[in-house]
């Protein structure tokens, strides 16, 4: 497998705050990759850098072999990277169907095909009955679904999801997870930022952990779950106490422990 999306040594500082301090991650084609880390570890900033909303101070973003660092958002989208936002961003005063059509690059002759495709996608996420309502009247969970649907209409190769399960009820979380799996089985690649561990561990085939702006560990979920540094850095001392019995002391081979792990 080759890496479809890769970042190398991304650095980004806001004044004195170093949001990213050399973040290197890679997402293989056809996988669902997870990106986790404590609040303020730079996950969303990394998303913004990848999708062109922010320019990195240093480092490169690769899409396949192509360097896409600092391309404008619309160009990144055209390359084949779609994203959703942590706080969903839909167009509230357009109808649900119109929301879908914004992302569809089409001309007049393709109008009907695009509309049909838009309705199919709305049906796929289960909000097709609301197609003619203003998107602003949707509930939060429905907005999440709409955002997922309209990213899909342009058929991006990689989809970046920023907390798809955040603030959503459990039934809807399962629906979203199902849809992601289904799309993945059709060949879509995902990179997901999420705080819901169950969601990430159940869905992703590899997980990268970001801490203080750089990637400390990455590997399959089983490995991440038992990695001591992850537990220390991300899940905190409480988790460590609760789960002390199950937890193996050794970190994954070939990776160094951070120097001080006193808690």
């Amino acid at each position, binding site marked *: 497998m080759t890496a479809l999306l890769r970042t190398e040594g991304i650095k980004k500082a806001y004044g004195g705050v170093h949001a990213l301090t050399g973040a290197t991650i890679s997402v293989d084609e056809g996988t669902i990759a997870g990106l986790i880390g404590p609040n303020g570890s730079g996950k969303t900033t990394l998303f913004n850098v990848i999708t062109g909303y922010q320019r990195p101070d240093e480092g490169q973003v690769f899409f396949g072999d192509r360097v896409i660092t600092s391309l404008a*958002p*619309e160009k990144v989208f055209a390359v084949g990277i779609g994203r959703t936002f942590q706080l969903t961003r839909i*167009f509230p005063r357009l109808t649900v169907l119109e929301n879908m059509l*914004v992302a569809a690059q089409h001309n007049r002759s393709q109008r009907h095909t695009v509309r049909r495709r838009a309705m199919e996608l709305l049906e796929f996420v289960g909000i097709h009955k609301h197609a003619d*309502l203003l998107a602003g*009247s949707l509930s939060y969970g429905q907005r999440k679904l709409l955002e997922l649907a309209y*990213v899909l209409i342009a058929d991006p190769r990689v989809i970046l999801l920023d907390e798809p399960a955040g603030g959503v009820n459990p039934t809807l979380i399962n629906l979203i997870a199902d849809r992601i799996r289904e799309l993945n089985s059709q060949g879509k690649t995902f990179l997901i930022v999420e705080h819901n561990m169950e969601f990430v561990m159940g869905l992703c085939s590899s997980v990268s952990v970001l801490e203080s702006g750089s990637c400390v560990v990455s590997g399959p979920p089983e490995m991440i779950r038992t990695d001591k540094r992850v537990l220390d850095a991300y899940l905190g001392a409480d988790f460590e106490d609760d789960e002390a019995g199950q937890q193996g002391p050794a970190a994954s081979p070939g990776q160094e422990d951070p120097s001080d792990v006193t808690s």
Partner: protein
Amino acid sequence: MAIRVGLLIALLALAIAFPQVFTNPAVTNYGVFAMIFVTAASAWNIFSGNSGYISLGNAVFFGSGAYALGLMAKGWNVQGATVFDLLPLVGLIGAGIAVIFGLIALHVRRHTFIVITIAVFFIFQLMAFNFSFTGGSSGLNSPFLTWQPVPYNQNFYYIALGFAAVTVAVAALVRRSRFGLQLRAIRDDEDRASGLGVKTMRVKLTALVITGSITAMIGGVWFYYINQVQPQTGFDPLWDLQIVLMAFLGGYGSVSGPVLGALIIEPGSLWLNTQPQFSGGYLSEILLGLIFLFVVLVMPRGIIPTGGEWIKRLRTRGRPAVVPAAVTEKVGVAVAAVGGTPPLQPPAKDGGQ
């Protein structure tokens, strides 16, 4: 649909018949000004109404159009009605100004954009005052047209009506097109739109160019109609406010809204200005301010959308016409949701259309 087309044709027929029925120049004068403002307000709406970038500087195009036509007519010694053949050129000049204006102002948003449009406006007014070729504070006079007093107003009326009709048609086309959808997406969330592949700068600039060229051309027509332009009439801050008020009163963002707003406000203020008992037109300005307050406070979305909502509510006797997906937090944003309780999941049984 058929009803709407029929209504449209009837309205157009009425508009065409108007100066034939009322031939008195004092009456047709109202018609000419109304059509000029229908054009200008609709043109304003194409860019600002759709994109949400409120421009308070469209008089830049209007005044520039007036001056451009005057200077060209004078410089090339164009006599008679052939001067109107120059209007496309005036439109081109308006487009050029829009490109420069846009490249400067469209990098900022919301309030900052409004402030910049005002600044650009004053730059143009100052230029008109201070350049020698613009005639300074005494402005320019147009060469006299050889038309007789009676068909004079009629002719101008039909020219302005033509512009109004074309502008409204363009506005309707924009509204229905993918381009219009992109503009409205920019209004709702510009960053999100660019993240979905919308080339935001290009889209905004194109809309501003359409608005600028139409406004410049109608400015040229206005100049020939009143035979003169001065810096303070061509570049008039009140003109800018009037245009915006017309769009807001009628229904900001809709196609018919600015037309209705212009048809109400322009004849109204013209009438007030010509009544001797309301000395010097101050009353109409005070009234304009009051209407502005009323619109912003009571019906911020304007007559057309609010009226449509009332009609819908009457028809459905208070029940929502469509079942809202969920109640929105902000009343101002929630539009389709006309009350009613929200089912969280897609409504299975009660999708009363």
